[in-house]
């Protein structure tokens, strides 16, 4: 038996025991859920790059016109067909210079200014159409998940819309409704409303399905029962308890929606049914350049790379968000 130091008094003993339990460091504030998400998100390199690039391109098209204040529609026929600045590296005789870093087109319009202006339209269409699709999709998903009576019909409707041939219908709708909207909102405004509307109305289905699935599972949980038992109304339950819990699938499908919207808009412009001809968008620039891509490949490459990189970064962002928001899916 070893001798144990007998404490002088019981109070001192309590202090000693208590002292062993106290942490040496000052206590940190509890980690929030969003802090964890951010930690997880940062580990996904592609997602961080994607988010960064998306931020960069959004800022570039928003603040670009202030930094590069050349009018994208200004004709300068004497300085037409300039090559981009990098052409000087392998060809000293090339018509290029810092006045037009990306060159000029066949009418002497500055391609850099056109890229910025086109990016504004493409990104605006993308963000707005995505927002519209999210609102519709979440609403239908929540309603059909929460109200059992409507579930069957709303989901049948979603399935029906899913089996619509989207691109042919979009082409059809754009050509048919172009005239009246143009006369009311002007050629650019009308087409903008039309394209955002059509993309939004035809891409909400995935969101609705995912949200519905999550709502169905959440509805059976105890906290919803508790909320209902204290007399919370359905609207309040949905807003206060259900929506915050399905925010992560909504965010993930938001990124997918943004990518689809940008691609669809560019595809429409490429097929020649999008915005009017002197109104630059990335798809429009690309399709205008295809006929002369042997001589001026950069005019196809620049908008094409812009579209592809934006979509790629959005897709990576979505991947990272999914990993961060749902740890079970990590590494997919």
């Amino acid at each position: 038996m070893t001798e144990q130091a007998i404490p002088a008094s019981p109070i001192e003993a309590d202090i000693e025991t208590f002292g062993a339990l106290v942490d040496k460091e000052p206590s940190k504030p509890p980690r929030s859920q969003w802090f964890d998400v951010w930690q997880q998100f940062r580990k996904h390199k592609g997602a961080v790059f994607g988010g960064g690039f998306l931020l960069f391109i959004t800022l570039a098209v928003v603040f670009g016109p202030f930094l590069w204040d050349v009018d994208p529609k200004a004709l300068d026929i004497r300085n037409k067909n300039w090559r981009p600045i990098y052409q000087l590296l392998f060809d000293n005789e090339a018509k290029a210079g810092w006045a037009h870093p990306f060159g000029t087109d066949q009418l002497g319009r500055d391609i850099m200014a056109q890229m910025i202006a086109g990016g504004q339209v493409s990104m605006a269409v993308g963000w707005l159409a995505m927002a519209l699709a999210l609102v519709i999709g979440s609403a239908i998903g929540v309603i059909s998940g929460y109200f059992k009576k409507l579930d069957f019909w709303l989901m049948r409707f979603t399935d029906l819309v899913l089996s619509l041939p989207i691109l042919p219908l979009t082409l059809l709708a754009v050509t048919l409704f172009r005239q009246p909207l143009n006369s009311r909102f002007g050629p650019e405004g009308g087409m903008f409303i039309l394209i955002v509307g059509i993309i939004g109305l035809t891409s909400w289905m995935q969101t609705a399905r995912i949200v519905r699935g999550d709502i169905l599972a959440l509805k059976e949980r105890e906290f919803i029962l508790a909320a209902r038992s204290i007399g919370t109304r359905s609207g309040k339950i949905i807003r206060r308890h259900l929506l915050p819990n399905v925010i992560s699938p909504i965010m993930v499908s938001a990124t997918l929606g943004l990518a689809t919207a940008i691609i669809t808009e560019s595809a429409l412009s490429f097929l020649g049914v999008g915005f009017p001809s002197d109104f630059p968008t990335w798809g429009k620039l690309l399709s205008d350049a295809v006929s002369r891509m042997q001589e001026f490949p950069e005019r196809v490459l620049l908008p094409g790379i812009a579209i592809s990189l934006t979509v790629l970064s959005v897709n990576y962002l979505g991947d990272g968000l999914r990993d961060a928001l749902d740890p079970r899916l990590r590494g997919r």
Partner: protein
Amino acid sequence: MLTFTIRRLLLSIPTLLFISLVIFLLLQLAPGDPMAQVPLTVPPEVKQKMREALGLGQPIYVQYYKWLIQFFWVEPQVFLDWATRDTFLLGWLPDTNFSTFIDPDSGAVRPVQRTISWQTRSPIMDIVIQRMPQTLWVVGLSYVVGILIAIPIGIYSAYRHYSLFDQAGTFVTMVGFSIPPFFTGPLLIVVFSVTLGWLPSIYDTTHVVTDWASFKVQFMQMIMPVMVLALQTTAQISRYMRGAMLDNLNQDYVRTARAKGLKESSVVMVHVLRNSMIPVVTVIALGMPAIFGGAIITENVFKVNGIGQLLLTALFANDLPMVMTLTFIFAILIVLFNLIADVLYGLLDPRIRYD
């Protein structure tokens, strides 16, 4: 299994009716007058007569009903007549005569009225039948090629999770997923047709394969359109394949299979692969709409005169009957492939069948 298939088949009828209604109403609601192209010198009362002849004065449901009859009753009759008369496959059957009727006034045998294209004044279905093989060849081949590339990539990426191959594969599929076909198309043309001069940039649909040399020409001209479409398929399917394989590789039954001494190849290629194919088959079939959408763009880029290109020219020429029929044909193709997906899903996963 048979009842399951029949139930699915019946369910696809309301779907098709809904889609046809959407297309029809879209054209009805669209402002714009089918008579807008008629010269202004035509007097109004003649215009009114023409309007009535086109059936425009009638209520919407009558017009819709007549369109349905035209599409689902009259055209199949004509098709059946053609099939028993001229095709190799059904030509041995006795010739049918559904598509003619005896005129009560004169007693003469007359062909039925078919849906006429406003551009060419010829029956729409004749043009569609001419154009359909090109689209189906390019789309079908690209899908087969895409699946054949995607599945091994998906399997190997999942099996060697986080390896260099996996990382590279994930990156490449992500890039392939993100680059739109209207960019890859011109890009490939610049590289392989213009710079290297290996492949033709325009798809020649009049080319007939008779011998080895002409087959080679056909092969060369199909490479680029097929690869552009296949890139999208490959990217999407290999991602799903990898995900499904990863899900299954960590399951208990895989450990059991290994523990009882099965060869690694049969564990992965038989046990895991078969279970992983279940979601992938659905994705393969549900990817068809996107592929047909992509086909419209690819046909435009490579000048393939398939139905996608036909749709575009009809749209620009304001040829509404043609547009309507083609959009509906796209819808039928999509519904058909959804049906195939459902049936395959039922075949692969008994739990669905007995639900």
